[in-house]
């Protein structure tokens, strides 16, 4: 199991991460999630800039060879940037899930929305319980 869990970010129960910078939230999937796909990521489908996202609703898809994994919105808001690099070369998600493999940036409406996210320790507990 991959326990690479950076301390400076929030997590979801569905294995997304969220890095907050002022009102902008960068979103990706965790190293553990890419391990579950045996790092064989062959497609990423993301919304376009300007899309309004609702918390916990699906915002995109990551495909391994075997199966599709839905991506869930960690905080509501408008998509302000999409990582074109992961659309062009989905393998980046597995090689650098927390850095170059980020997927979208969302303009957050309220810091209150971060409350439902998991702290690194909680996420560590979650993946231990899934093993």
């Amino acid at each position, binding site marked *: 199991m991959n326990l690479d869990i950076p301390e400076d970010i929030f997590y979801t129960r569905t294995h997304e991460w969220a890095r907050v910078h002022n009102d902008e939230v960068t979103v990706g999937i965790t190293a553990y999630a890419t391990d579950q796909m*045996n*790092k*064989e990521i*062959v*497609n990423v*489908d993301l919304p376009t800039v300007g899309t309004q996202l609702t918390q916990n609703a*699906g915002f*995109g*898809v990551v*495909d*391994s*060879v*075997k*199966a*599709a994994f*839905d991506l869930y919105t960690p905080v509501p808001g408008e998509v302000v940037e999409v990582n074109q690099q992961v*659309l062009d070369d989905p393998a980046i998600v597995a090689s650098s899930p927390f850095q170059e493999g980020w997927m979208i940036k969302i303009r957050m409406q309220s810091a209150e929305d971060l409350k439902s996210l998991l702290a690194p320790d909680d996420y560590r507990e979650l993946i231990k319980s899934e093993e």
Partner: protein
Amino acid sequence: MVAIRHTSLYTWHVEHRAKITAFSGWEMPLYYTSITAEHQAVRNQAGLFDLCYMGRIRVKGKDRIKFLNYMTTNDIEGLGIGKVHYAFICNPQGGIIDDVTVYKAEDYCLVVTNAVNRDTVLSWFHQHQGKHAVDIEDAGFGLGMLSIQGPKAQSILQRVTQAPLNDLNYYDFVITQVSHAEAIVSRTGYTGEDGFELYFGALYTTTLWEKLLHIGTSDGLVPVGLGARDTLRLEACMPLFGNDLTSSTTPLEAGLSKFIKLDKKAFIGKEALVSSSNSELSKRLAAFQMLDRSIPRQGYEIRHQDNTIGNVTSGTFSPTLQKGIGMGYVHNLHSKVGSSILIMIQGKPHPAEIIKRPFYKRRHTE
């Protein structure tokens, strides 16, 4: 509640760090290293498959040919000794109970079923045995089954058998010595590559598996899990029971009418198949490729403009074509090669095109 089943190679798989997955009541390797690597090994060198989970039913007795001709759609009477054919077991409505291969030996026939249908087919046979003088035997646990597939399969297998494999034609089999075991060796498979399936006393399974891997390593032979088995068969447009074939689809709709012999004597499903072969089919199994980077999956809706015209029955990323491919039943009007369709993924339409089957055809070897 049925207990989870394991083949005798399960310990080997776990010791070799296979990722294990549930499959039709069995726990089997999904992959050992990666689906893509194993897929490419079979396309370019060779792969070895543990198929001990497959159902195998041995039918003996003097009425075996008559009985199997009644139970299956293909003509086993016209099949030569030492030959294999593909056939369907249908219900009276012409729906598919299972798709099988049938081996015709001198004094018995071997029916190879899908794992999920082992018990179904066995009881279906018993149920229809009637006055036929046949002996129906579950050979699934007594026989081991392995498959070696890929362009190097013949040269690797030839090192452990005296039988002249070069003379063995597609869908022929011989009973011969393979290493220390007496085995049925058929030139058959489910990958779109040249290859062989082997049946032998179950006791030899692990030694034969290890022997083949040992002598084949220098030629790139690797063990292959169910993940690549699925991508390989789908590229070759070989249908999978449970996905592309079910009790509510007929072999005619699946485009496999050549395995139905409507001119032979009575068989289960004949009347329904005769009548539907005389009328227009409402749906057909079609193969399609995505026109963007998205990947179709089983169950996704297929549309033409705003109308639902079918569902995806199998879908995957094709390691050979590097794009999403799939099959599904679509309304007759939209099944023509070149037709534009839409696959609905997370509520969004993605463009796809019906293509001529199969996606992958191997270049002729030897």
